């Protein structure tokens, strides 16, 4: 279909669809035409479910899939109550519509914070149950029987005896004419009757990921798409000073050079020409006010500011007095670097700005902000922004920010027809919204028995909420900045936690997988280890002592310790470290085994996780998130650091912002504690908990405490 034939209204339905074909093959296609035109005749009891006369069930996914398995998990929630097999459903991305698809916890239409299951656990089951009730009612009407005597099963409604059956497709017309049942009349299935939830269902997006068929945002090619390679000012706030447009235009395939306020884009027939043209453009930059920024200065500034008291996040008991009266006092400073997300799919966005509309093809975690960004740049009304969302090739928080969309729309405003703006890996790493640099001061006191009597934690660093949602700040405290710090799982008689907002000059900061806990759990779990060492206690025993009133935390700790054979002796230079965490609504304990070579190189050989995340949706996805989350965190522990000099980020690609590779990847074991508690989040849990498990293992192996990340092998050399 040519683009001119796509009226905006119709384009809104132009989502990528992943449909399961016979034999489980995933067919990726565009949901143009029939799906939309047939919609009027479909049974669509709510925004998440559509059933056509042939019985085809389409489920609309409110949350974006970026590897965490949410498409399958949310489809399971719907299919469980709707009583359909997962093999028989087709998935669609939700369009931008906060009123229909807004996140019940976050309000806006976004995916983040390991909240998708927690937020949609009830609403999606209710949506499925609503549809089921209507289909049952329609069948009961047909048979002239009491709906209560009928039941739904595998896409059919059966009567009491099970002799009569009507397929959902046969019931859509009647069901669509019935009034929706009142929510309070709906009966959700009880966990003992679950047939899908809690089982390791096959992911619905896997088949298209092994044959190249699945389309990510970067794979969108609306008719006539040109490619733009972009160079953004290497210094935040800088702008292009001189551009050799003639040289760029002389490159075969280059069509246009576009300047925006802080970037230069070369538009061409293909990326090869665009990149070559960008190089030929020999851009010189006016660096602006941040030309002298360096991470050394940023850290020095943080160090100074961290000496001032912060806003009080929590204060219980008299920490000052307790510290003064402690048998032993321990003080420590912990530092965590800026981190890039470095998702495998580099930043990209395809945009077609038309006179009366702006259409985007992108993978974003944040549809609400994406729409607003495009409306702001174009000056169009928000309802004129059409977003075709895609499965994301790795988010990790980076796709919560929409700077890539703003840059692309600015370029597209000057281009006739659709243009795909692709960032090089170097642009991607050097123009991040980085995980903030944190500088944390800890003071602890223990009594004669080694028990903690005082706990003082002062966080200093950038506040993301202060930038994006100031009302969330509470008397100067960023709740994310102290998440995982304000309420450690342990019994601590006197505790004070402070937050000191210190913004770095010339650096943008944002969410990174694990958010607040990925910083604070490292500090808290390292420091509790320090107290255990000061008390000359075994790290697991010490934690157990302090978890006597926290049975779920105690349970995961005991399970992880048992599975990891805690206490079994290890050779010299090998160590075992533990961490316990309550975050994202889930309890997690990790035990890591590490070997530290004579030259200081650290090799993590095994990671054992024990998790209590309440009722499970897809246990195999939980295991996958334990495995992947742990490796994402481990990569940062060993290698992750973004540094700046002369206003410029010093890292650029995978040769100096190192990813963990297969030969370094430890085996990750997952042990799930069966519970009937409400579900917790799981996408980020292992990322945050693995940091201290690894550094505590290094301490166990070497006696050296890692307080500044990433690990510096020089400090761990055998002496």
């Amino acid at each position, binding site marked *: 279909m040519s683009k001119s034939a796509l009226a905006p209204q119709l384009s809104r339905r132009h989502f990528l669809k992943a449909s399961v074909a016979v034999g489980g093959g995933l067919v990726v296609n565009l949901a143009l035409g029939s799906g939309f035109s047939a919609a009027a005749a479909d049974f669509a009891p709510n925004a998440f479910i559509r059933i056509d006369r042939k019985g085809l069930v389409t489920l609309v996914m409110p949350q974006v899939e970026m590897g965490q398995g949410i498409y399958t998990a949310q489809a399971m929630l719907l299919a469980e109550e709707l009583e359909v097999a997962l093999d028989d459903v087709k998935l669609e991305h939700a369009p931008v519509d906060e009123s229909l698809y807004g996140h019940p916890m976050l309000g806006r239409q976004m995916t983040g914070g390991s909240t998708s299951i927690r937020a949609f656990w009830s609403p999606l089951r209710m949506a499925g149950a609503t549809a089921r009730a209507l289909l049952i009612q329609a069948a009961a009407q047909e048979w002239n029987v009491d709906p209560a005597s009928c039941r739904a099963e595998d896409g059919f409604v059966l009567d009491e005896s099970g002799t009569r059956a009507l397929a959902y497709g046969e019931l859509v017309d009647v069901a669509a004419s019935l009034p929706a049942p009142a929510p309070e009349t709906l009966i959700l299935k009880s966990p003992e009757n679950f047939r899908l939830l809690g089982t390791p269902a096959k992911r619905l*997006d896997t088949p298209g990921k092994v044959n190249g068929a699945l389309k990510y945002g970067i*794979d969108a090619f609306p008719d006539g798409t040109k490619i733009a390679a972009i160079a953004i000012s290497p210094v935040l706030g800088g702008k292009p000073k001189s551009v050799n447009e003639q040289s760029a235009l002389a490159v075969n395939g280059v069509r246009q050079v576009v300047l925006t306020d802080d970037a230069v884009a070369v538009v061409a027939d293909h990326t090869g020409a665009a990149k070559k043209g960008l190089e030929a453009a020999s851009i010189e930059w006016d660096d602006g006010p941040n030309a002298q920024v360096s991470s050394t200065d940023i850290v020095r500034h943080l160090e100074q500011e961290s000496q001032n008291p912060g806003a009080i996040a929590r204060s219980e008991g008299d920490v000052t007095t307790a510290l003064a009266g402690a048998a032993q006092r321990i003080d420590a400073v912990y530092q965590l670097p800026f981190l890039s997300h470095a998702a495998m799919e580099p930043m990209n966005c395809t945009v077609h700005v038309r006179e009366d509309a702006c259409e985007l093809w992108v993978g974003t975690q944040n549809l609400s902000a994406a729409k607003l960004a495009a409306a702001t740049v174009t000056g169009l009304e928000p309802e004129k922004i059409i977003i075709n969302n895609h499965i994301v090739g790795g988010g990790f928080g980076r796709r919560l920010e929409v700077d890539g969309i703003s840059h692309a729309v600015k370029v597209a405003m000057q281009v006739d027809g659709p243009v795909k703006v692709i960032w090089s890996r170097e642009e991607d790493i050097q123009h991040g919204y980085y995980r903030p640099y944190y500088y944390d001061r800890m003071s602890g006191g223990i009594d004669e028995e080694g028990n903690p009597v005082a706990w003082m934690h002062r966080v200093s660093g950038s506040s993301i909420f202060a930038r994006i949602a100031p009302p969330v700040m509470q008397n100067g405290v960023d709740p994310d900045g102290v998440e995982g710090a304000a309420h450690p799982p342990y019994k601590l008689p006197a505790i004070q936690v402070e937050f000191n907002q210190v913004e770095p000059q010339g650096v943008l900061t944002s969410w990174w997988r694990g958010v607040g806990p990925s910083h604070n759990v490292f500090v808290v779990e390292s420091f509790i280890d320090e107290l255990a060492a000061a008390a000359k206690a075994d790290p697991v025993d010490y934690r157990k002592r302090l978890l006597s009133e926290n049975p779920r935390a105690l349970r995961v700790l005991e399970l992880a310790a048992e599975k990891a054979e805690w206490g079994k002796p290890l050779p010299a230079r090998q160590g075992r470290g533990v961490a316990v965490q309550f975050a994202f609504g889930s309890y997690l304990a990790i035990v890591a085994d590490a070997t530290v070579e004579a030259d200081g190189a650290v090799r993590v050989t095994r990671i054992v996780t024990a998790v209590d995340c309440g009722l499970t949706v897809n246990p195999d996805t939980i295991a996958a998130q334990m495995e992947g989350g742990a490796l994402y965190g481990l990569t940062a522990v060993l290698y992750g650091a973004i540094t700046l000099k002369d206003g410029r980020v010093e890292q650029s690609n995978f040769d100096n912002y190192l990813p963990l590779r297969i030969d370094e990847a430890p085996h990750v074991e997952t042990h799930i504690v069966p519970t009937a508690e409400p579900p917790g989040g799981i996408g980020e849990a292992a990322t945050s908990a693995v940091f201290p498990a690894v550094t505590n293992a290094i301490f166990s192996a070497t006696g050296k405490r890692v307080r500044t990340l990433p690990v510096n092998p020089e400090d761990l050399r055998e002496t």
Partner: protein
Amino acid sequence: MAFSLQINGRAYTVDVDGDTPLLWVLRDVLGMTGTKFGCGQGLCGACTVHVDGVATRSCVTPIESAAESQVTTIEALHTVAHGKALQDAWVELEVPQCGYCQSGQLMSAAALLKETPRPTDDDIDNAMWGNVCRCGTYQRIRAAIKRASA
């Protein structure tokens, strides 16, 4: 200038500069988007294709050097030795998370099994070292290669 190419058993002619990376010819000129762009420097393996059966980083392979060769991409993986077995193992063991690197992982794995039908862990490390996965699917990749080779 014009180059004749053999891709997945079909002949194509493209008119681009000779130094244009094969990756962009596949993706932007020919519309075969299964091969992914990850780093542009041969550092991550997302763009891996087979050139005359050898795992090759298409982002650093000038089209002029591939013009006389047989190129195989993820779209035709099922036609090469072990290709289908690998795809099946990837599905059975639920290897992909975001999935973006998996085209390259699979192409490297197929090249490995072609040379070494029963790879050891060291063989797998050596063959797959250049393929980065930021989602951390390595242990499932290792298990799936072993399953496909069994």
